[in-house]
């Protein structure tokens, strides 16, 4: 199967999953989106790497999602629903996500001038995940959402970095870091979430 032909759809999948992670109020939906996001990451990385090596990203990502999901099953009350019951909050986030998506579309050609080994889909997918992850980090103080934001940023980074670096050790370290972030997230979920002041 030619994964390259599917690349535009994969970018679409990544945009949807990243937007769902940013907007969602339901932790089950967020964890599902995270899992789906890693499928997109695998497919875009597989454009540069042998498939069997790229699968490492999917396995590490799914384990990370599973760790967070299992913690949230036990501690679902710890999930930070910051949007409340007002639709305006979700609407605002949708609007911001749309703006960010457009900004990334305009930025992608610029990036392609120096990330010479990456295809335009890889660049766009990477930019969408990184920017949505950063948005997520900027909009939240909840540990669980921060962890989701970090994992999204890291996924976006890994897509573009895979076109530059194929070292086994680096990828092992990145997988360990993905799992480490998920474990830290699971650890923080079992703690009280009240902020004690700044």
């Amino acid at each position: 199967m030619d994964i390259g032909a599917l690349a535009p759809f994969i970018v679409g999948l990544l945009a949807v999953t990243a937007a769902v992670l940013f907007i969602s109020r339901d932790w089950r939906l967020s964890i599902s989106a995270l899992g789906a996001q890693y499928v997109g990451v695998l497919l875009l990385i597989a454009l540069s790497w042998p498939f069997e090596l790229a699968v490492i990203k999917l396995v590490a990502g799914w384990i990370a999602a599973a760790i967070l999901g299992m913690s949230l099953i036990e501690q679902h009350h710890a999930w930070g629903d910051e949007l409340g019951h007002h639709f305006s909050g979700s609407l605002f986030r949708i609007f911001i996500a749309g703006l960010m998506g457009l900004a990334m579309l305009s930025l992608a050609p610029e990036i392609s001038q120096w990330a010479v080994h990456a295809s335009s889909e890889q660049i766009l997918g990477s930019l969408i995940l990184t920017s949505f992850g950063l948005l997520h980090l900027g909009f939240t103080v909840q540990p669980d959402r921060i962890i989701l934001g970090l994992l999204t940023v890291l996924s976006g980074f890994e897509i573009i970095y895979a076109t530059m670096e194929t070292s086994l050790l680096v990828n092992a370290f990145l997988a360990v870091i993905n799992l480490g972030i998920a474990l830290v997230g699971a650890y923080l979920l079992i703690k009280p979430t009240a902020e004690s002041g700044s």
Partner: protein
Amino acid sequence: MTAPTIWIISPLIVAVLLFFLRRNQVLSAIIAMFFTLSLVILAWQLEIDTVTIIGPWVIKVNPQLIVAGRSFVIPPAQQPFLILFFGMLTFWFGGLLVIPILPIFTSVALAIGAIFIAALAVQPFLYAALLIEIAVLLSVVILSPTDKPVNRGVMRYLIYQTLGMLFILIAGWALGGIEARGENMDNIIRAAIFLGFGFAFLLAVFPLHTWIPMLTEHAHPYIAAFILSILLSMVAFFSLNFIERYPWLQESLNIFRTLRFIGATTILIAGIWATFQRHLGRIMGFALMLEVGRILLTISLSQESAALNIGLFIPRVLSVAVWALALALIDARTGSLRFRDVQGIARRFPILGVGLIFGQFSFAGIPLLAGFPIYNILWGQLAEIGWWLIVVSLLGSFGLTISALRSLAVLVMGPAELPWPKDEKSSLTSRIFLLIGIIALFLIGIFPQLFYLPFLQTGIGALFP
């Protein structure tokens, strides 16, 4: 037998074993102390890459260990630093005998120490960014104990360090590309921007510093001080490696001038902010931020920066250890480090008060204390570059001195009828530890040549004529 096996893998194994002893803090602290002390002795006695005969045994320690095609190298020149580093760890673990702390601290701290050495040893050195991130993830667990709410400072710390790692990895790739394809000003500027953002995040340079005081305010002072002093040192050595590896960065962009400006700004802001704090933990946070500025200024000196960086490491870790030990002991007695809660504490526990103030004074660079000799050299070198650098550096130290004097005023404030050491109940062991630390601060301050003698190989000796 390889050097990385002794000084990286064996501490990691012991750290895992200590995890199972976490219920017994004193026992795990004693084991960690003896273990790190044995690593000090090995670094002192064994000669890397040379045949050593000990009794009936003939030992040759290979400097290199290869893992997954990449190597970890500890050259013989790093042996004095290993003595210093594991010696400092011994002192930090000693503090655990007198303060109640998170049970897994010993295990995680030893693992972070091993990762520090791995980050210095890994080749290509860019991989150190990944190791630093792993150390950060481990440290989040001890900075955020389960019985306390999640602190926003810890989350910011995690975010900033992760973003820093990503920028450094991209910068490394961009710099490698420039080396391979030849220098092009656009590419150099792009790589420098990535590198700048990376180190700004990792070193918590102004205005990305906000998590440091938040962390030292809410986390356990001993843990926060340990993590910050180790992390800053790790990133400082990593930054130096970058500058040494890519000298054309300086030639093309005059990067040192930028470093000086950022370092001076960070020192000035930290000094001013420290002056107005009303929380002993936050003051320590701003002092560590001031140290970030000093690190940047040291790196910008180019000629003696490596030696000065190791020189700064010694008073930094010792001063902060004494300061944090005193803070932890005060915190255990008052439950808070706000000025209003620690009023008069030095009247009841004079040695704790003395430890705290001398730790702070040493950081500020007051003469006769450990910080002064090396800061004096740094200031001398800065004066040769520009008068404004020395003025800003001294202003930062002045701000920290004012905050130390304010702390002193609060610590001795109290009802007039309370006689001085009437209610001294701090344990004998904790007093002994603090006194050892205070005496060490003075010994290094008064006789720097004697103390730095074992580290002549690193070039520090040349700084003390």
